[in-house]
């Protein structure tokens, strides 16, 4: 038996809390991904032109 019994409110709001948690996690992934793309310094249009040439 756990020391802190989960309040009924937490169970009821589980979907809301899970949704907010996943949204925040997705936001972090997006910021991280954008940072990597931006700092990698690869100009995508130039890279594409090079491939085409």
């Amino acid at each position, binding site marked *: 038996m756990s020391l802190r019994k989960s*309040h009924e*409110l937490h169970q*009821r*709001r589980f*979907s*809301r809390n*899970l*949704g*907010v948690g996943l949204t925040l996690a997705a936001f972090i992934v*997006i910021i991280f*991904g*954008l940072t990597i*793309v931006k700092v990698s310094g*690869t100009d*995508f*249009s130039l890279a*594409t032109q090079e491939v085409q040439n």
Partner: protein
Amino acid sequence: MSDASINASTVTAKSHADEAGFGDYFALLKPRVMSLVVFTALVGLLAAPVPVHPFVGFCAILFIAIGGGASGALNMWWDADIDKVMKRTKGRPIPSGKVEEGEALALGLALSGLSVIMLGLATNWFAGAFLAFTIFFYVVVYTMWLKRSTPQNIVIGGAAGAFPPVIGWVAATGSMSIEPWLMFALTFMWTPPHFWALALFMRSDYDDAGVPMLTVTHGRRATRWHILVYTVLLALLAVGTAFSGIGGPVYLVVAVVLNALFLWGAWQISRRTEDDAEADNFKVERSFFKLSLLYLFLHFGAILAEALLKPFGLGGWS
């Protein structure tokens, strides 16, 4: 007073069944409208002559969609009073009592700021500013000002829904040209016949809410003629777009077929009397409305097809 007692009193004040879940907050963003925004913005982004990094492109579409969703939440906040009256909208999160008006306002403002800043950072500030203007136009110009004051509300409000392909294009190129405005014009001219057909068979809704829809202010006969006139102008524009930089043979075939069907539907609507419409429960108006959904989707789909064929030397007229 402890947090527990505050929570307890809140819980008793509001029935548990009425408590909002994550889906109710998501519904504030008008997901169905958002799907149109996503699709048209994606076409604008991919039809642009400048390639975009796939992840940046994904983020651009995501933030344009969030901006569109934010304006939907702000629209629901402002229109909560009339949403309660209309059959079509009374199940929305605010009129159904699941979400407070203030929550919708806060969510709308927060997501507006977030989407504009993130789009600006991910692509360019011209695109960010354009998204900010679109949100302002939809919320302030359309929702707060025009919707309840003029029967041309749908015409002018349609501009807000027509901006996403322009934002997508600007996100890719950082500049402007005629092609994104042709996509804008296509959605802008499509909106009035699409909504007026809906208003013809959902008539009591707008009457009850006191929204000055054309059917109420100028009558149903005038609305039928308006649908025909707008459809003729739309057909000229839609077929003419085939000969621009975003058009091509695939688009031309799609445009000719769809516009012939759309014109035929509008012509039938203009010829019908109210007795005819009542007799078959607005069959022609309903099928015209369904066709209008397919009409926009396939036109933008054809623009996308032309853009995707270009790397293989097939898209466009060259």
